[in-house]
């Protein structure tokens, strides 16, 4: 086992990594942006080091500083959490050069997990279905030619992209050049080879299914029940269900076999998830990618199976054997997770920074919530706007939905806007309830308005009108009082007015 592990992240995943590393008996060392000193993980670590904030404003992405610190502190390993440097190949190499291990999956020497076109080729060679697409390209002319062959609509993706970075839908040839420029611009700040992109056929009606799995260095493999994460905004997962409600047990078996073949060929050691697109019209699934980092949704699988996924992940990286078997993760009921974000779905999911005046999380039998903020905390604009994860476990999807609906009705954040109302509306939307939807369900503006409209009852509309009228009425009333007071300053009306105002506060 490691003796000293550096956790280079913030928020919930930082606290969870500190916890897992301590449970394994290692020393948990972490870093923090000065604004994050109150974070739970910082308080709980055995050592905490303040990062200097440079021009980028995001010190958690400061490779030079973190590698230097890791070396100086003589850590054995670095846990990158998710986002930030979790999939940064340069970071991994720089640490390796100092003899420090990045906690990320090991694999056969002849593949690079971050090179998605290479993985697509490999998967196809193993007999897995992949979507029509291109190899890595860097020229607009080549992209246009390849697109012609694949056919529109299609996706343009940064070859090393992850977490929604460098990914665009292309409807027609004219979109290729501006989108390539935009992807390159964005990728430049996150990826080492920003100019590399590839094309892939776009299946707008498809569902996203991923199989999380753990495989140790001795080849022991445990495949967890698949997670469905079709509900996304800006290519980021918002709702997770496990197991998926759209695939048959035959398809499930087929995909598990495909995952097993792929993992054994890649000689993966660590925790990854293998993602597929599933087209229900043709009952056909396509290999999409391998997520080679611990995902935020792993918490839903942890609740569902009772397995401490983070601890297994660190333990595998330290060349230990898996402590679980396939039998330990057999599905038991349905688990669902909803990520709550400080963003405004009414206005294209723009971040909604501000002060959380009060935060009520839902709790109860089968309802478990996790957060990294407190009432009184500010939500800034520099970091991911996810502030909580609400989870429900139940014996069936129908019951899990009922439970999640009531849970979300019971969650309140005063002070900032969030996606809670949209999520409440989604849980009641017939297409979602019947499991007949695709990735556009909440990302498309018109579809989103339909979800809201379904949620707006006649009674609620009347009450909204009442509130609007009441709001004017009270303004008018106050005005009356003040007008009268000015006319007759010897009367008692000033007292009445000030009394009224003070009672309102």
């Amino acid at each position: 086992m490691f003796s000293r592990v550096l956790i280079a992240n913030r928020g919930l995943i930082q606290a969870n990594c500190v916890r897992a590393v301590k449970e394994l008996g290692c020393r948990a060392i972490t870093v923090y942006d000065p604004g994050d000193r109150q974070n739970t993980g910082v308080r709980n670590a055995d050592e905490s080091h303040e990062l200097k904030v440079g021009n980028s404003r995001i010190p958690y992405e400061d490779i030079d500083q973190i590698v230097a610190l890791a070396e100086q502190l003589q850590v054995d390993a670095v846990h990158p959490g998710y986002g930030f440097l979790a999939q940064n190949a340069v970071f991994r190499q720089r640490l390796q050069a100092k003899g420090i291990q990045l906690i990320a999956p090991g694999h056969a020497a002849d593949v690079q997990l971050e090179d998605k076109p290479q993985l697509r080729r490999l998967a196809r060679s193993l007999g897995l279905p992949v979507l029509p697409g291109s190899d890595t390209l860097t020229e607009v002319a080549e992209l246009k030619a390849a697109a012609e062959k694949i056919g529109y609509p299609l996706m343009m993706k940064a070859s090393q992209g992850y977490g929604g970075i460098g990914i665009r839908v292309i409807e027609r040839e004219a979109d290729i050049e501006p989108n390539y420029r935009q992807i390159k611009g964005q990728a430049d700040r996150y990826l080492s080879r920003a100019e590399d992109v590839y094309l892939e056929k776009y299946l707008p009606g498809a569902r996203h299914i991923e199989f999380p799995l753990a495989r140790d260095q001795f080849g022991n493999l445990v495949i967890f029940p698949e997670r469905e994460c079709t509900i996304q905004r800006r290519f980021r997962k918002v709702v997770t269900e496990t197991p998926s409600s759209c695939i048959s047990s035959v398809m499930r078996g087929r995909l598990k076999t495909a995952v097993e073949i792929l993992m054994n060929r890649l000689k993966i050691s660590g925790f990854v998830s293998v993602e597929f697109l599933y087209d229900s019209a043709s009952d056909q699934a396509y290999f999409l990618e391998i997520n080679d980092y611990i995902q935020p949704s792993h918490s839903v699988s942890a609740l569902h199976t009772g397995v401490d996924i983070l601890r297994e992940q660190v333990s595998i990286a330290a060349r230990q054997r898996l402590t679980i078997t396939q039998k330990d993760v057999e599905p038991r009921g349905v688990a669902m997770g909803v990520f709550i974000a400080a963003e405004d779905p009414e206005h294209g999911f723009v971040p909604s920074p501000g002060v959380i005046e009060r935060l009520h999380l839902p709790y109860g039998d089968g309802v478990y919530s996790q957060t990294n903020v407190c009432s009184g905390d500010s939500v800034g604009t520099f970091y991911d706007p996810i502030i909580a994860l609400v989870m429900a476990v139940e014996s069936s999807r129908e019951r899990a939905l009922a439970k999640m609906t009531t849970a979300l009705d019971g969650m309140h954040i005063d002070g900032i806007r969030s996606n809670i109302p949209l999520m409440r509306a989604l849980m009641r939307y017939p297409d979602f309830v019947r499991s007949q939807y695709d990735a556009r369900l909440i990302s498309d503006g018109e579809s989103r308005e339909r979800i809201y409209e379904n949620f707006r009852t006649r009674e609620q509309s009347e009450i909204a009108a009442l509130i609007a009228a009441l709001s004017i009425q009270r303004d008018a009333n106050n005005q009356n009082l003040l007008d009268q007071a000015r006319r007759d300053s010897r009367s008692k009306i000033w007292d009445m007015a000030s009394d009224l105002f003070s009672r309102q506060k």
Partner: protein
Amino acid sequence: MKYQIKRADMRHNVDIDGKYDFIDESPVTVDKNSYQVRVLETDVNGALKVVMINRKIYHVSVRARADGFPEEVVLKGVPYRLEVEKIESTRYRPPPPPKSIPGDMLASMPGQVVTLLAQEGEQVEEGQSVLVLEAMKMENEILAPKSGKLVRVAVKEGELVMKGDPLFEVE
């Protein structure tokens, strides 16, 4: 006073008696239904925050236009866009809705301008992306509020902007 309020394709008639201050439970009629209303909490300016209606607690917020008239009510987090069409009173009249959409766009949050998608002087369509602003690690496309000529672009690629900074203007 009587209010007529339009919400989507519905019109609601709200009748509020001026003699109540709603600190105690008092009736309000909306269309054919009567609601018992009590104001539980307002902010320091007297704006409604918590209202009990038929014994159910509603946390609300009311967003007003520049002239002070409500244009959106958020009810337990769900936004309802609405318009006050008529007020029957001798003293108060709703002002006419604003005639033209303003063409200048201000930053609604702090962030970094990562891409300019249109040049000063170009003709733009309503809803067309003019620039991309990154905040909270996410790209936000800032759209033209109306069709017209992009008379001014106030920012450069890579520039950091604060909330309220001017971004561009369409005429």
